[in-house]
């Protein structure tokens, strides 16, 4: 059977500028992608007493902390919604995004052995890191469901849009994760930049506070800056779709364009510099 087929021809040539994404090659290695995700999910809570409970416990504790300090002490407004549910519905997609970006950003540097000893499409590494973050997100969604039952909040038809909105958040995470992963290989400064960046980004995103209304108390500069952040529209849209409030479609559309753009920029930049990874990692 082997000798009848023309064997596949592989050309190894010097790198030339920008490369295509070569999604076909990634598809050929889909099993590797699957096992890398599976490894990250499996290993994350190994040798912990509470195991996968942590996936639920972390957002729960975060929610509790923000409820006490923001909801009660600082009196941050959450509109008509009870603050804990409001905060959790924002924290869920945000935590996913933050985990995905930071683990994606450190993924290539952390896979040095793989990169220097085996060939495979390099994009699989940050993709797998982002993919693995979905597992925690799914576990935490159950928690949100329980809380919504307790508070008697029913999601509306908008819930149907939630997977789409999450998909866009996923693309945004892929974009930021791959870009940071590629930069991190050449400039290890990003190891320290990433946590700081994620922290800063969280406060620049209306995750645990309500986006100030256009004519509200917030200054117009803050308004403009918040609107520039693609996560603003995505988090707001996700929260609205889950909690049954009107989805801000316009903001979502703008953010989606930004997210898809970020995804393309991240992946293409990654492809451009990936040929040097094995030499400089």
């Amino acid at each position, binding site marked *: 059977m082997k000798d009848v087929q023309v064997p596949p*021809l*592989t050309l*190894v040539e010097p790198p030339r500028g920008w490369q295509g994404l070569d999604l076909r090659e990634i598809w050929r290695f889909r099993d590797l992608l699957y*096992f890398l995700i599976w490894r990250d999910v*499996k290993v994350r809570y*190994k040798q912990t007493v509470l195991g996968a409970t942590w996936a639920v416990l972390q957002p729960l504790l975060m929610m509790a902390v923000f409820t006490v300090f923001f909801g009660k002490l600082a009196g941050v407004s959450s509109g008509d919604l009870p603050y804990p549910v409001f905060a959790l519905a924002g924290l869920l997609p945000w935590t996913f995004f933050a985990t995905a970006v930071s683990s994606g950003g450190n993924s290539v540097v952390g896979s040095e052995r793989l990169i220097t000893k085996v*060939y495979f499409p390099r994009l699989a590494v940050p993709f797998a890191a982002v993919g693995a973050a979905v597992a925690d997100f799914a576990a935490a969604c159950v928690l949100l469901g329980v809380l919504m039952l307790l508070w008697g909040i029913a999601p509306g038809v908008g819930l149907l849009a939630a997977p789409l909105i999450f998909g866009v958040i996923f693309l945004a995470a892929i974009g930021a994760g791959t870009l940071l992963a590629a930069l991190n290989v050449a400039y290890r400064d990003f190891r320290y930049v990433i946590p700081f960046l994620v922290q800063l980004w969280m406060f620049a995103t209306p995750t645990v506070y309500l986006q100030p209304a256009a004519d509200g108390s917030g200054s117009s500069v803050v308004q403009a800056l918040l609107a520039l952040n693609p996560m603003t529209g995505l988090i707001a849209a996700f929260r609205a779709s889950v909690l049954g409030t009107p989805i801000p479609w316009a903001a979502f559309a703008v953010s989606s364009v930004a997210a898809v753009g970020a995804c393309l920029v991240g992946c293409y930049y990654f492809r451009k510099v990936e040929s040097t990874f094995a030499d400089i990692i």
Partner: protein
Amino acid sequence: MPPAIDCQRLGKCYRVTTADTNAVCGYRTLRDEVVAWVTMPLHRLRRGARAARASEFWALRDLSFAVKPAEVVGVVGRNGAGKSTLLKVLSRITKPTAGRVALRGRVGSLLEVGTGFHPELTGRENIYLNGAVLGMRRREIAHKFDGIVEFAEIGPFLETPVKRYSSGMYVRLAFAVAAHMEPEILIVDEVLAVGDMAFQRKCMGRMREVGQSGCTVLFVSHNMAAIESLCTRALLLDGGRLVHEGDVADVVRQYRRLVLGPSGDGIAQLADRSDSGRRQRIFRSVTLLDSEGAPTNFVPLGGLFHARITLDAQTTIAFPAITIGIDDTTGQRLLSLVTPLARTVVERVAGRCDVECRVESFPLAPGEYWLKLGLAAADVPLDDVERALHFSVLNGDAFGEGRGIHRGLCVAPSTWSVRDRTEHSPRKETACRTAVCSS
């Protein structure tokens, strides 16, 4: 039929970071980049373009060769000859700087065993993970699973995290997964020197099977015996260039000449080593002497091994422990000769001195060996030299029994006696000395 591997004028250049560019650790930080960018015009003016080019290092240069389908080709060369870089380029881990390679067939490469193993995962889980890393499909791994477990001999520990494995079990499992790849072109770096002797034999057997199954194999090794037994043709690299190509026996002969080169007369100058790292450079030279006191590269089987090491210690070293290690060509330690163990405690060394070591009847079997040097004081290593000197043990009439040994790794003088147990016969003893093999 077109060649399976067609390599044309391949070149790979690395930019070597020199000490004056601040990037000592090899990583470029943003600050370095910004500084370099700002000061670039200044540097250009000061050093000119020629100086900038001097920090380039060509690991491979103008390399052209072709491998026919189903051919098993060995790649030999000294350390730093470019063998590993060649394999990395062929297995698409790094891109070449010049030239091109055409590979016809599914490529499987094995540059290290156990890449992708995760210590927290069980043996079973790691088989799947490692298999996927090596490019196998999930169904394919499931199909070969039992074969892998059987080859690795780890049956009862399948559900144990591999971090609890012994190092032997770990490499056995890792090699077992790799041994079940079925590529059309297999690229293998020095990975067979794993596990114990029995397992190494099994690995060699597996490699031979792969070679005979019609798979094109490119095989790097320092073990000339393995090269000679597996390959039909070989390439000799030196300084990133192809210096010889042809029949395996011929290339191995050339390789030996190259390796023995500067130390071919039994003297290795160690004073200006560059690889010593942070340790001191105490060893100056090592010489192997024959019974006449002349430098040599050969030790007769069971005969005198006599090494003279010249030291130059800047400070006084009290109670130094000097080690001569003898490794085989795969890097396996076969013998260690250590000063305190031999009860010749050296009180101190200071300044320049010669240290001599004699083994009256050298116990290793005929073959090729590397001599390694080490010096420590109070268990702190001060200097060591890997692969300091290359020498051979020659087959010969070791113990006067008329022939050399045929099996085993080492020899020992032994006394044999025969006592007649039949009745009434006077006690008769026949004693003779002969060589005994242990393996």
